[in-house]
Every structure is written in structure tokens, then in C-alpha cells.
């Protein structure tokens, strides 16, 4: 199995890099490519089973787009053929139409999904999220300068029951299309959600226990209870 982490030197701030660190501990036999920005990604020349990209700075978004736009067609092919994609934080914006900066400048994105993002640098948004995906309750955190708009209902990843979706006031969070998952949730999404890791492992054709299963579920259960207590207030 091959798992590619795109640009870990930029795309893993806010603890997002821990998603791959954790998968490495779950999948000891898998090959993990940590692809730096100056290198051609492995997915260009070979099929990989999973691609991960995480939260980055707004400046890094431009740098990463410059690298990924030439591979737009290939990324589309991989999404259509069912490669697993996990995209966290503002990396999710790169797969939409464009990012609008505060002065109205539009940064062209990969245009693989019909969403667009708007930045608001002086009003940072922080939030907690509980939401449903299939039979799971997903928990997570948001901390961002931008929100996404546009078509979102059909392919929403998480139906939020506490907190906000892709922009304040809606319940649809992220995109789930085939095996592509993107969300504004930042940080160690997988570590916070052991059931979702188990779900991903099934998608990857792996039949084994996740690492530190008991401790992970213990932490998850306490966190979910905590969040539900807040929700009921």
C-alpha cells in the first residue's frame, strides 16, 4: 500500500501532520511518501492508495496551488477512480473554484469542486464541531480565516449537529465524493475519531485493529460527552 503526504513541510500546521504520524503507526507495512514541495508528487507517475494534504498558511496556499494546478487532470482521474483523499483545514479550499482575498483578488484553485472560499483576515473563526457521517459521530475543531460557499449540500462530508458547517449558519461541512474527503476540521482529525480511522482502513482494504484502540476510544468517548454537554446547554 502506498500513501502520499503532500508537502508536509507546509501542509501540516495546527497538528494536522499527526494524521499521517498516526496512520504510520496503524499501517506499519505501508509505504509512506512524504513529498516535499520541490519534488514531483508520486501520484503523477504511479497509482497511490491514499493522498493526504493538511492545513497551511494563506501564503503557502498559493505556493501549493502553483505546484498542483499542472496536475489537475491527474487529480481528477484519481478522484474518479476511487483513490482515497483526505484533505483537512484550508487545504480543502484548493480543490474548489477560487479563494477570494480581502481586497477582492481571486486566486484560481483546482476547480475540482464547485465551492469557493472568502478570506476575512481580521475576524478569525474558532469553533467546535460535532456532526454525523454515516453511522459515526465526528468531532473536531476549526480555527480559520476563511469560509467556503457554493454547492455543498449534495456532497457534504459531515452533517453538523453542533457548530457550523463550511460557513456559519449551515450544517453541511466538507465534501465527500467517492473516496474523497475534505473538511475544514483541523489538526489530528483521525486521532480524535477512531471510528473514522477504522472506516478509512476498510476503504484501503486493511483488516486490522487501529493503533492504541482502547486509549483512543476512551479519549473519544470523554471528548464526545464533553461536547454533548456543551450542546445541551
Amino acid at each position, binding site marked *: 500500500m502506498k500513501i502520499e503526504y503532500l508537502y508536509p*513541510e*507546509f501542509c501540516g*500546521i*495546527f*497538528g*494536522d*501532520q*499527526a494524521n499521517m*504520524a*498516526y496512520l504510520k*503507526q496503524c499501517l506499519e507495512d505501508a509505504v509512506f511518501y512524504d513529498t*516535499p514541495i*520541490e519534488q514531483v508528487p508520486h501520484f503523477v507517475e504511479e497509482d497511490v492508495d491514499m493522498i493526504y494534504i493538511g492545513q497551511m*498558511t*494563506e*501564503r*503557502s496556499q498559493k505556493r501549493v496551488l502553483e505546484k498542483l494546478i499542472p496536475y489537475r487532470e491527474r487529480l481528477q482521474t484519481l478522484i474518479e477512480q476511487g483513490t482515497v483523499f483526505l484533505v483537512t483545514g484550508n487545504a480543502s479550499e484548493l480543490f474548489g473554484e477560487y479563494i477570494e482575498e480581502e481586497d477582492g483578488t481571486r486566486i484560481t484553485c483546482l476547480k475540482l469542486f464547485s465551492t469557493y472560499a472568502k478570506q476575512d*483576515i481580521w475576524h*478569525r473563526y*474558532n469553533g*467546535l464541531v460535532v456532526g454525523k457521517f454515516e453511522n459515526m459521530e465526528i468531532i473536531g*475543531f476549526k*480555527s480559520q*480565516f476563511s469560509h467556503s460557499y457554493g454547492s455543498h449540500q449534495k456532497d457534504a462530508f459531515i452533517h453538523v449537529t453542533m457548530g457550523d458547517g463550511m460557513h456559519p449558519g449551515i450544517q453541511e461541512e466538507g465534501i465527500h465524493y467517492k473516496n474523497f474527503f475534505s473538511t475544514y476540521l*483541523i*489538526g*489530528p482529525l483521525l*486521532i480524535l475519531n477512531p471510528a473514522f480511522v477504522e472506516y478509512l482502513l476498510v476503504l484501503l482494504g486493511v483488516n486490522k485493529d487501529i493503533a*492504541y484502540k482502547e*486509549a*483512543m476510544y*476512551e*479519549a473519544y468517548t*470523554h*471528548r464526545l460527552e*464533553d*461536547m454533548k454537554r*456543551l450542546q445541551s446547554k
Partner: protein
Amino acid sequence: MFKGVRFYIALWAAKSAYVILKILKRNATHYPGWVALKICPQFLKKVEKPETMIGVMGTNGKTTVSNMIDDVLSYHHYVYLNNRLGSNIKDGITTSLLKGCSILGKMKYQYGVLEIDERSSRLILPYVKPKYIVVTNIFRDSIKRNAHTDFIFDILSHSIPEKTLLVLNSDDPLSNQLKPQQEHRYYSIAPLPYEKDKPLSIVRDVMLCPHCGAKLQYDFHRYHHFGHVYCPNGDYTSPTPDYLIESIDYEKENFVLKFEEERYTFHLVSDNLINIYNQLAAISVLHTFGLTMKQLQDAFKSMKVTRSRTSSFKVKESEIITHMCKGQNAVACSRVFDYVHFTKGPKEVIILLDDNGDAKKSSENLNWIYDADFELLNDESIEKIIVGGKRCFDYKVRLLMAGIDESKIIACEDEEKTIEYITNPPKEHIFILHDIWKYQQCQTLAKQLVERLK
């Protein structure tokens, strides 16, 4: 010069608020400034400032550096304005300045030392223009407030006044790039014999040459993005330091500082490298300000780091050390973990990092713990780690991820009960690492632990 009726009403109202709060024994470090700005939004612009000001900024260490500067100036009988007991955001700086003015608005002090919050600097520095600003570093901080280093760097780049002389850390390839067209002095610590050249750091916020975008190379890599860097295309290199700590003698508790080919021996205020950087920053800016090396050597002779940061208790053959770990700040915590890691001898560690506010009212975002180097606690000399508080189960997972054996980890929801898990007879060192707001609580816990271990 008459500053307008509104200004004087604001000044008198704020001064009255200050007096009333003091009579009520309340903390009057923020509200008077808020009152002044509410009545006169131009108050910060109009209020008189000390003629010569030193600003202290940076993600980590600015409070310690400000305190050191204050202590040195007091030692030499300078009379100056400061915000040592106040807040470092706009309202707090305003409070400090209005306190320093007479009721007619005349500034009473010639000198000022102000610790200034980086994020708030865009609201402060257009009106408060320090002659000198020392920047300790720029690191990843609380993401909820400070987002990331690009954000903070851009704020500082736009806010720092053009005529300010900057005293910067040459070893920080991020903050040493601030305002390259301005006058600078740089400070640095040379590689030390015990330091590994390939540090165990998750966070590294500077990777590329600011000019050509090539991947930066290191002559010496200390931790995170700190070190002596160069661009392989020759477009950037760490600046040559004016103030260089050449060597540190931990046994004799001193270090040798080189300045213009002369060498000066200084008493070491703390054996923790982050505090040695803080001391060096204070020395560099105060020397730039005009104190002589002799004055600085004398003032630092008997200085200690403020007690709220670290304290020590002896019991039997053991030492209990409480150490502040700035929660939500991965780099600050990593540096403390590094200190624990390098402390020789068997030890047990209590970790109390829950945010008190979030523990009561929210569900704390703990993303930052995956940026912090808990791997430094994966060491044979650390025989037990007790994590306390509501989020102890999240910390347990983090410690497992760091490769620490589960048998060494105890998760205890009740912070007060964590000390019950410390082994008796005690190990050589017992560390209590605590969040910024838990100082008093941990002093009590340490004293209870002393009684229990006696």
C-alpha cells in the same frame, strides 16, 4: 500643547477609574485604558510618551526579558515607566501611559519599557514608537488567536516604526528578517558542546529562502527553525551577531559574551537555554540603549528568573521542580520538555496543562499537543508520567503516540490527586509542569507533595 477637551475628560475619567479600582483592591491594569479609549479614541495617539522607550516583543520570552530589563534598570536607579504588572495589549499599554502622566497630561518619565503583544502591535505601534525594540523570536503560538507565523510576521513588518533600532535574534531565521532596511543589532548563542545538530522538533516554521525560495540549509540546527542557516544559492544567511555567547559553564554558572572582539563573563541567571536567550536579549538591548558591559555584569550578578515561571522544593535527596509550560503553545512546551529531557538523573513528571477556562466552559482544542515534542519525554530517565485534568485521556494518547510505554503513563482526571501517584522514596527529580494560570495551585501541590514524601 492643548490636546482637546475630550482628551482631558478621558484622562481624568481613566485616572479616577484607576484610583477607584485601587481602593477596591482590584487589578487596575486594563480597565482605565479602556475607559480612556472609549471616551477619546485618539487617546493613545495624543497621550505623552517617555522620550526613550524600549519595546519588547516576540512569541516566547517577552515577559521574562521585560522583567530582566526592569530589574537591571532598577538596579542602576533608573526611574522609568513600565507595564510589568499590566497587560500588553492596547488597553493595557494605554493604562500604563496614562498612569505615567500628571493630571495635566504631562509625562513624568524620561524612559519607558513596554512589553507589547505582537498581534496588538498594529493598534499600538502607529502611536507608541519605541527607540529600540528587542524581538525574542517568532514561533507558532496559540492558533485560535495568533493563527500562524506568516500572520504575525506580516503584522510586525507593517507595524514596527521605521526609525526604530531593532535588536534581533540572529538564530531565528524568521524574526531576524524583520525590516531589513532598518538599523539592527543581532545576538546569538554559538553551538554548545552537548547540543545535537539534528534536533527532535516537529514544528519548523521557516523552510525556504525569503529571496529565492530555495530550501534553507543549516550549518547548525538548534531546535525548531532556530540555527545558523544559509541559502544554497547564496541569497540569504543568518546575520553575523554583534553579541555572541561563545561558551556556557553550567558548573560555574556563567557564560562568556563576545562583543567587538572583547569578552565579558556574565553570571548565568538560569541553566535553561530559553532563559539564556532571554538574558542575552536583555543584555543586547540594554547595551544598545547605553549601559556599559560592567553595569550589566553587576546587575545580573544576583538575578533570578521570576518565581512564577519556575520554583524548587527539596525533600530527602530529591528536588521537586515546578515549571510553567505555556499551554496552547507547542514551542514553549517543547522547550520545557527539552529541559526535563536534559536534566540528569531518574525522574517522574506530572503534567497539568488543561486550560482552566476551557475546562469549565468549553472543550479545549488540543491540536497543539501534536505540534509539541512530547517525544522528548520518551526517555529512560523518566520513569513515570502522570497527566492530570479533564483532558488527561487525550494527553495519554499523545504520550502513546510519542512511543512512551503505557505502563509509565497514568491519566488522572482530578488534578489534585496526581501527586498521590509519585513514588516514595522519591526519584532524584520530580517535575510539575503546569499551565500559566496554575502557578498557585502547583505551589500548593508541591508543598503537599513535600509533606507526603517526608
